[in-house]
Each structure stands twice: as structure tokens, then as C-alpha cells.
């Protein structure tokens, strides 16, 4: 299969935006290694994890400064495509967090969400995005320390890999 896939690979139309070569490992090896803080987007549910991050703030639980939060009412509202979009636009990592199963403010949202995220996570990795760059988890409104832990660990994982440059997604 791999061979077939590889042999399928054809340079794109030279004048079209899909510049050929940009995707070849060779070209990437040549790509300059940039040195900048990693950019991580966190998509969090308003009732649990957003409030959990607040709790962490109130408790002055220090965290790395690489995460920017996108507030949504419920993890059930998160379209997996948001994550693809984020990576396409150059996010170095995406973190999703919501209410623990059973605690959803809307009672069921996170049950649907976790099925989607599980598939998404598996597909993302398959698309060449290392596991360290995507995490979804649960942090409740009272778990300020857990939030600190989750953020600290995730950022550390992404920093180990550094910024993502010139990737297919």
C-alpha cells in the first residue's frame, strides 16, 4: 500500500498554488528550523474547563504561556474540523477539554464529543501529526490544579517537538 501511495505522488501543476516539492521530505529537510514559542490553541467548555482555568488563575497556579483559550459552551459544540483547521493554519498543538463524563452541563454533549475526538485523534496521528500535538481531556470547574498539570504537561510535550513547519496539515 505504502508503495502504491508513494508512487501515486506526483508533482503538482507548477503555476498552481499547490507548489510541487514543498511536500517532499528533501525540501523539508532544507526548510529553516524556526525558533519561536510554540502556539497552542485550547478549545474548552464554558462550564468546566474554562472555569477550571479560572480556578487555576484564582489559585495563582503558574503555567507556561503558550496556550490561548477558545471558549465554547460545550465540547459537544466542537466540530472536529476546527482542529483540522487549526493545524492547517499552523497551530503547533491543540488541546480540548470539557466536563468529566456525566458532568456535562447539558447532560450529554461530552458523550457525543468523546466519540468524535477519539476518532479524530486517531486520524490526526495517521495524517502525520504526532500524538504529543493533540490532546483531549476533562477538567472540572473545581480542578484548578489539574488544569495547571494538564497545560504544563501538554506544553512540555509540544515543546519537545518544537514548532511545526511546512506540514501537509
Amino acid at each position, binding site marked *: 500500500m505504502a508503495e502504491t501511495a508513494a*508512487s*501515486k505522488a*506526483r*508533482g503538482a*501543476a*507548477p*503555476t*498552481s*498554488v*499547490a507548489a*510541487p516539492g514543498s511536500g517532499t521530505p528533501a525540501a523539508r529537510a532544507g526548510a529553516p528550523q524556526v525558533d519561536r514559542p510554540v502556539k497552542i490553541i485550547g478549545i474548552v467548555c464554558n462550564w468546566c474547563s474554562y472555569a477550571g482555568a479560572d480556578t487555576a488563575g484564582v489559585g495563582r497556579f503558574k503555567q507556561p504561556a503558550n496556550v490561548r483559550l477558545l471558549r465554547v459552551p460545550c465540547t459537544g459544540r466542537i466540530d472536529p474540523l476546527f482542529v483540522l483547521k487549526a493545524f492547517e493554519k499552523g497551530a503547533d498543538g491543540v488541546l480540548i477539554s470539557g466536563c468529566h463524563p456525566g458532568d456535562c452541563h447539558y447532560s450529554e454533549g461530552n458523550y457525543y464529543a468523546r466519540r468524535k475526538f477519539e476518532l479524530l485523534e486517531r486520524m490526526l496521528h495517521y495524517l502525520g501529526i504526532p500524538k504529543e500535538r493533540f490532546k483531549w481531556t476533562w477538567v472540572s470547574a473545581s480542578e484548578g490544579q489539574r488544569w495547571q498539570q494538564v497545560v504544563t504537561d501538554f506544553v512540555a510535550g509540544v515543546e519537545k517537538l518544537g514548532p511545526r513547519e511546512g506540514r501537509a496539515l
Partner: protein
Amino acid sequence: MTIKYLAQDQLAAFLAHLAERARVVAPISEDGVVLFRNWEPGRQVDLEVLLAKQAPKEFMFPQTEEYLKFSYRMDTPVVDESAPPAGASDDGQVEAALPHEVIEVQAENAAPAQIIFGLRPCDARGFVQMDQVFGGYGGFYFDPLYNAKREATTLLAVTCRDPRSTCFCTAIGGCPAGHEGVDALFTQVDGGFTVEPLTEKGEAATDFAALRDASEGEAAEAAEVKVQATTRVDVPFEIDGVRDNLKANFEGTSWQDLCLRCISCGTCTYVCPSCYCFSVNDSLVETKGERYRVWDNCFNPTYTLETSGHNPREKKVNRFRNRFSHKFWYYQDKYDSLLCSGCGRCIMHCPTRIDIREVLRVMGAPAGVPEAAGAASNSAELPATDGKEA
């Protein structure tokens, strides 16, 4: 002009010579799939497969093409201190005192020289037909992006020695050795090519030491090849009257039957040498944006979708009818040209093998011809041979 000759073993050298002054594009086979790609020394040109999957259209008319970049700057006007302070009462003054957007635009239209080698006369003819719409024919819009590339491009076509069963160029005034749009015509003969420069561009491109004048024998062989090829091209329908008949059959019920298996994708239009439709998009993030165009096609349900939500071609059959009527009727009325060069790519690559020849046989025939009935139109082309068992 005199007919020249290029030995097969000199082809690489010739292309290398061209590659020094321009980008050279040629049909290249990658894993059995032939596409027009950048040619570099060492790459094999594939002239055995008659037609590359896609016409070389994208080199004149890229699928995605940028018009311009634009950006916003917030500009805070200097308020005249001497003037009385702006009260909420004085709207104009408040307006004036507020920061305003200033839009900056940069557009560039780079068109480096390029030479397309190994396209077929039908491919070249496709450009000629497209020239009408992009070239401002009849006082319509002149497209700078297209024409800059067109200007900078030389077309070195190769005669079709062995036309496919799906070819029908001759039926619509074309020819396997046609000259329309061709700068120089190469014809494969024993041991090499005869080369006929047809334009100044062609002259310039073929001005190369390895090209010698063709012998009479070679010239004669080339002529024979052309005749043979031309006679081998099928003439599946009579073009005369097609325009009028399409018009007459506009409400014909057979459109319904013909489009039943159409899945309304854009494949036929994207592989077509002459389909030219595109849509324009703006993208803006914060203060930086760009305007670009991408190929569009009349099978796209949103192609004619109006802001009101109304869609005059909401149904598949409307869109289906449009493609053929446009190619053989509307375009002719507006630009005095067909919009088809008979390459047959739409037939070969259509996921359900919709057959433009069948459509023209049925809808291009005088109204009320018995063929124009669904089941009948099926059997009309049902081969004698019976189905085979699995």
C-alpha cells in the same frame, strides 16, 4: 515555411536547449498516469499515450490564481486643535476625528516564458477557443492574467498518429494534425519528427542546430501519417445544425434520460481543454487579505446560486443541458466559436462515462427524432455483442 526534421535521439537535447530559455512542460508518465509536468533533463517525454489525463489548460489558466493582495491600515486623522472640540452633536466632525480604514493593494502579474511540448492539436485548439472569452472578443472583458501567460507561451504540438475511438476532432472542424493555435507542429515519422514551424514563436523555438531540413521522403511520410490519422478519426455526428437543433430541443424530454447517470461532478469540465469557468474569492485575516480565482464549473450546484437563495439551475438536468448547450450554442452566438475541440477527455474520465457524442447525436439531431427517448437512446448505442458472464 520549410519542413524541418528532428531525430528521436536529439529530442532530449532539443528540450534541454529550450529549457535554457524557458520553462518546458511536456507529457510525463508517473506510475502509468500521464500528466503535463515540468520537464527537466533526464525525464522521459511520453508521446505513446495519446492524451494526458488533463489538457495543459492549467499552464495558461491555473486552477488557483491570485489577482492581488490587499491590506487594511487604521489611519487616525490629525485633529485640528484650533477647531472647536467635536461634540456628539456634530456628526461630520465626529466622523472626521475617528480612525479610518485605509486599503492598500498590490497586484502583480508575472508570466515567465514557457514552452509546452507534446500537446495535441486539439489541446492547442482549446486555447484558441478560450482566447475568445479571455481575449476580449467582441468588446468583452480582456483578462490580463490569462493573456500575459498566453503571450509568453509557445505551443509545440505533436500530430496524433493513432487517434482513440473517443476522438472526434474532425467532426467539429479539427484535425489530428491541425494548425489552430499551434506554433510548431511535430509529426512522428520513422526515426524522429518532422517539424513545421507555423508562427514566429514556432520559428524561434525550433531554431536549433540539431534540426535539419526534412528530406522529401520524410515530408511525404509525415503527410501520409496525417492523412491516415485523419481518416481514422470517427465522425459520430453531423455538426451542421447542431446549434439550431439544441435550440429546438431545449425543452426536449431526452435531456432527462441522458443525464440520469450523471453525478453532477466537475470532472468533464476540469479535464476539458476549453472549459474556462472560474469563481472569485476574497480571503481576509485581520488586516491582510487576497483576492484569487479558482476553477468553477457549471455542474457545481452553487454555480448559479443567487444571493436570494434562488437557483435557476437547481436541478441536475438544467446543469447538464447547460454544459452542452453552452459549448455548441451560447458560446457560438457570443464568441463566434465552438467551445469543444473533440479530444474526448470528458468521455474517458467521466466517472459514469457520459458520452458527449451520444448527447449531440440525440439532442443535436432535429427535434422529434425517435432516438430522443430514454430507453431508445440507451439501445441506440448498445453494442451488438451481448454482455459477458462474471
